[in-house]
């Protein structure tokens, strides 16, 4: 399909056209022409025209932490419903976590997921497990999984507490030319992470997980990076203490990258006051000052990416007593709006492209879509100033577990385009 987008501004620090207000012609899946003014002669017959007024065109966004629940929990999300959810949220690519049932821990698990994703234009990549059954005991066959297409390895939200095993996993990953994602948490300190340890959660009767537990494990991981000389991406940074460790490691010149979850930027532990299980997430919602420091760390580049941590859960898993409820919230559709709101003016269109499209692909070593004539068209169009109320109709996920329904936002995803398919949020 051929597509003409009128009067859109390019947001891409890697493009010569960055910041330019242009008309964009897409033909056969490629940028055919990008010009400040398109003459009628340039426009082929039967082209579908879109008005880009007030909007920005960025390289297609990438979410490097999603759970699509297939195989194992297809009633919560399938790979296809997850892809639809991603497209709605402005993402043309995602990284699936291996925490399905069974865990993604063999080459055939990797291939199953990748094959299932081929019918929809959101590109799906998968992480493989570092250890068998994500149990933190024995290394899984990472080399074979990598041959099958796994791009990175993680045990998802289970820290490998055995330091010797983590050291060997790093060495082995370096050996086969891949990278690990670590989860910063010391579960012996954290306990069941129902709530942050704070004044407000004390009044709610929660035992509370101390925030420094993240930094404790992260400091160990930094030592292991030094020793093995291997890069590491750390997930789930939610506390001031952990931000400091990342900052220090970067200052030491270590190849560390870090990610935060979108909901941690906007929500804090006072949300738990009504015991609404939609606010039950892992790591738990932290204090207001943690939240503010997290936004600063994103703005100054200490934290490299923000992810949705999209975690679909059915009603049966959520509409129960807080303790019994499953962790997590869906996030793909709301991530941009949530981050935009939390960052309060620190999300320029150019920075948005860097945070949402470029940095995650760089960390994963994936090709970054470029915006230039002749390049393959893979892009996201968003309007940073459009006000709207996030509603159920914005959700394409099979699940509805989000506290953001009926929330007011400024900043909306308008459409995505990839693999010759336009996904228009108005349709």
């Amino acid at each position, binding site marked *: 399909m051929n597509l003409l987008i009128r009067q859109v501004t390019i947001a891409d620090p890697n493009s010569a056209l960055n910041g330019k207000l242009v008309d964009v012609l897409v033909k056969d899946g490629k940028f055919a022409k990008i010009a400040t003014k398109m003459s009628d002669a340039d426009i082929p017959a039967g082209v579908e025209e879109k008005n880009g007024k007030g909007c920005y065109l960025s390289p297609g966004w990438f979410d490097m932490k999603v759970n699509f629940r297939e195989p194992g929990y297809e009633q919560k999300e399938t790979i296809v419903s997850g892809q639809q959810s991603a497209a709605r949220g402005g993402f043309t690519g995602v990284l699936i976590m291996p925490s399905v049932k069974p865990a993604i821990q063999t080459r055939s698990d990797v291939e199953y997921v990748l094959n299932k994703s081929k019918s929809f234009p959101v590109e799906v990549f998968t992480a493989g497990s570092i250890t068998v059954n994500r149990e933190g005991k024995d290394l899984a066959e990472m080399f074979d999984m990598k041959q099958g297409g796994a791009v990175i390895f993680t045990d998802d939200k289970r820290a490998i507490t055995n330091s010797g095993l983590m050291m060997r996993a790093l060495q082995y990953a370096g050996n086969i030319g891949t990278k690990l994602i670590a989860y910063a948490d010391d579960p012996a300190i954290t306990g069941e992470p129902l709530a942050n340890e704070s004044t407000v959660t004390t009044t*709610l*009767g929660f035992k*509370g997980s101390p925030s420094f537990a993240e930094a404790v494990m992260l400091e160990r991981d930094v030592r292991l990076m030094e020793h093995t000389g291997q890069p590491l991406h750390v997930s789930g940074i939610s506390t001031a203490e952990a931000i400091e460790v990342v900052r220090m490691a970067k200052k030491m010149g270590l190849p560390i990258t870090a990610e935060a979850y979108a909901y941690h930027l906007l929500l804090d532990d006072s949300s738990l006051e009504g015991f609404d299980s939609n606010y039950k997430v892992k790591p738990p919602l932290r204090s207001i000052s943690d939240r503010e420091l997290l936004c600063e760390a994103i703005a100054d580049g200490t934290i490299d990416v923000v992810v949705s941590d999209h975690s679909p859960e059915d009603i*049966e898993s959520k509409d*129960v*007593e807080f303790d019994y409820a499953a962790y997590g919230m869906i996030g793909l559709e709301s991530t941009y709006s949530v981050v935009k709101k939390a960052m309060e003016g620190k999300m320029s269109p150019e920075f948005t492209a860097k945070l949402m499209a470029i940095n995650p692909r760089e960390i994963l070593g994936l090709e970054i879509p470029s915006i230039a004539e002749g390049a393959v068209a893979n892009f996201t169009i968003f309007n940073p100033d459009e006000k709207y109320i996030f509603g159920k109709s914005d959700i394409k996920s099979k699940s509805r577990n989000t506290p953001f329904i009926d929330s007011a936002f400024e900043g909306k995803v308008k459409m995505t385009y990839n693999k010759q398919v336009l996904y228009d949020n108005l349709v």
Partner: protein
Amino acid sequence: MSQQLSVQHLLGIKDLTKEDIELIFNTADNFKDVINRPIKKVPSLRDITVANIFFENSTRTRLSFELAEKRLSADVVNFSASGSSVSKGETLIDTVNNILAMKVDMVVMRHPKPGAAVFLAKHIQANVVNAGDGTHEHPTQALLDAFSIREKLGSVEGKKVVIVGDILHSRVALSNIFCLKKLGAEVMVCGPATLIPRYISELDVKVEHNLLKALEWCDVANMLRIQLERQDIKYFPSLREYSMMYGLNKEILDNLPKEIVVMHPGPINRGVEITSDVADSKQSIILDQVENGVAVRMAVLYLLAQTR
């Protein structure tokens, strides 16, 4: 009586105003007279059916509620989790809705998890009374404790109360702190550092790890039960060592510069939190607490029924 509570459910002391608490106390004064008469019963809740739903073991709280309900002439049904449909995997809402479908007006619930009463109140029509939800709140215990202090010392305002023991796992401690602070008392918590929540002092509560110092400071000592069943890991080496550091015996009590009041929410581990001679001494108001429990619960049920 024309006054009404500001709440429709008793989920926690947190939600009550000082006026609510005083109203409950004044109402409880009347009911305490009632239960000391030859005919211990009034017809106030004649048209009300109350379900006591206990998802966690309890003897005295359930008995106390049941007596309170019966003395108000309510119809009472009891339900406890063991051997019920809960063990077959039924959810809390389904269990309670099934009971409500049989036309129950009020639900008294005890549950092992914090927030369960709040959750229930959001989902059902009946008045909910929280009879303890995990480590969150146990409002009627706090009310009867404060009522007993008021009875013994004339008022709660300005009194110094120390709560001794496992503060971390105690809903009694948390509800007591809220209640006593609202009534103008000074509160201290005392226990091993591993069992004191890190942020408890933010609630305007003093923290003391030395029992003797705490007792010298206080007018009232509320000795909490050590609840080993609620501890998932070891917080102190042994009960023996706990009672060496935090157990109250007659010798300590007699050597204090002033006569303090000793309380315990029960059931007592005799020889652990307090020795038998302390429990049975004239300074102990443990059995008054039990008696007042019935009167206070009658007041709560009566006042909640007025909000219907």
